């Protein structure tokens, strides 16, 4: 499977950005953005979809850290 070209990459990124904008405006409610999610998944390779999902989670976590600060998890295995 050949790597995506620059045009395909840009189409994928555009779809991803639209999907993320939809999520931002609907408070991360994936149910409201089904159509954009499908467009996103069709334009991007599967691995990239997974990668971008993880990236979104990371960006939200980072924002949470920046605004709320760090709260260590209570059920920590190691002491």
């Amino acid at each position, binding site marked *: *499977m*050949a*790597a*995506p*070209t*620059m045009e395909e*990459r840009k189409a994928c*990124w555009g779809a991803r950005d639209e999907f993320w904008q939809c999520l931002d405006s609907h408070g991360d409610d994936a149910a409201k953005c089904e159509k954009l999610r499908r467009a996103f998944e069709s334009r*991007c*390779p*599967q*691995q*990239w979809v*997974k*990668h*971008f999902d993880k*990236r979104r989670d990371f960006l939200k976590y980072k924002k949470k850290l920046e605004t709320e600060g760090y709260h260590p998890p209570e059920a920590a295995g190691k002491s």
Partner: protein
Amino acid sequence: MWPRPFPRWPRPSRYFRLRRRRRGSGGGGRRSQVSGRRSQLRVMLRCLRSIPRLCPAPCPSRCLPRCRLSAAPDTPPLPLRRRLAVAGAAAGAAAAIWLYLRHEKEQRQRSRRLAELRRVALGQGDFHLRDTAGVERSKADFLGRWVLLYFGFTHCPDVCPEELQKLSRAVELLERDPALPPLQPLFVTVDPERDNAAALLRYLRDFHPRLLGLTGTTEQVRAAARAFRVYVSAGPRDADGDYVVDHSVLTFLVDPDGFFRDCYGRSRTAEEMARSVRAHMDAYEPLPPAGEE
């Protein structure tokens, strides 16, 4: 209090008048005391000047130090030009010493830095890879040129295209200045299984025209990544056999002697990179061959 010699000299009348005036005001605050002291100082100096009338001529030996003091207005001072020449010579000597010491310090810093670079020995290990034309390339082929080297792979979702865009832009900015030495951008793939020469050519045509892609066998690529301490880890494959490779995102700057000079991460912009490379180029001095250090 007054210095001791004064009471022994005949006091001119002006001195007495001032002293009486000061006693009269008596403790009238610090400022009047300070101004009182100043005027007394002035009187003291005037008294010194008036001493020639008191000294017999020629000056006996016991008067000599004071006479010399008071003789100042009669003999002409050293000409201004000579004084300036002496001061200038002293300043010049001080400046020369300072410059010499600074030069020595810079030399020592440079040799210390070189010793550090050699010790770190990053990128010292040679790489043996193949470029997109199928030609075998090693580090020796790029000696004499500055190299900006990026490790990535063509199936990269977003990071590698962004970084390559930055790299291309930085090289473009530096190419605009004809006085700068030539700079070779390199792309080394961390995914040799999928990124053969054709894939690299297809991928890299979207970026700088001189950006050269390098690939090879898995062992060769692994050795090159190890030489630059680049972390490479292929992810799990999905149903299509697709996978992403996790890797450190760094652009390395290597000087014409093959030494690692600097690395740029995701936070640096293209302009910052160009500025930094230019600074390294300006500060660069060719090394003497290793035996002569």
